[in-house]
């Protein structure tokens, strides 16, 4: 089920490519450069991967709704999904020196999202609904 600004996927990593393509097309239309586009699709990929793995435990009967909006020189990608309350902004930044010294694995998705996007907003909408919004500013007047 898609329209110009929304795509709904079942919660499976096989659908990550579909989400990336959807968001990439919107980012191209808005005039982001190729480096910014890569940062945007990577952030959305990381957000959806976390939802699929940790919120939905790979349960494909769950859905993620991905909505794109652009206003006031901001590109907003909103993900709406059912599941437990988890605010990525409350996660501590990893110490990368320690990370590499100890050969750690995983835990880089949220730091990447925060590094590449201008803002990450999270709302627990009602007892079982979440809304995660990734915001990238259009730097130049386009």
């Amino acid at each position: 089920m898609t329209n110009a600004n929304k795509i709904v996927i079942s919660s499976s990593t096989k659908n990550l490519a579909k989400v990336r393509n959807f968001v990439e097309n919107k980012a191209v239309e808005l005039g982001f450069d190729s480096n910014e586009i890569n940062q945007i699709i990577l952030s959305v990929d990381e957000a959806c991967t976390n939802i699929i793995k940790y919120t939905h435990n790979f349960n494909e009967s769950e859905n993620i709704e991905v909505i794109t909006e652009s206003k006031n020189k901001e590109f907003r990608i909103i993900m709406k999904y059912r599941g437990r309350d988890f605010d990525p902004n409350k996660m501590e930044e990893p110490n990368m020196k320690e990370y590499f010294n100890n050969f750690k694995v995983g835990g880089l998705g949220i730091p990447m999202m925060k590094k590449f996007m201008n803002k990450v907003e999270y709302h627990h909408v009602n007892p079982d609904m979440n809304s995660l919004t990734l915001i990238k500013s259009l730097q130049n007047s386009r």
Partner: protein
Amino acid sequence: MEEFNIDIKNNNDITILYLDGFLDAHTSGELEKSFEKLIEEKKYKIVVNFDKLSYISSAGLGVFMAYIETMRNNNGDVKLSNMSDKIYNIFDMLGFPILFEIYKEEQTALEKFNQ
């Protein structure tokens, strides 16, 4: 459909993995399987050629983190080569060059094993 493939070639005691396509949480299991097989075969000197890799997410980065210690503990290493600027920027922004040797050319990575 975005795909991911791995070609494997041997150069004396060094194994070269050629990555092609999109490496994300859906496809990273393929790369894990390749590393597991190399460890089973006691092949610890690895060069990963990124020339045809179009995309990598943190799931892909995690595979390299998961195996580098085993390779180094067995007198080997995982050396990376031929990254596009787009891919290198991801590794660089997270600080991966602290731990990984990253070369522009596969040949340089191969030569470093013999120094």
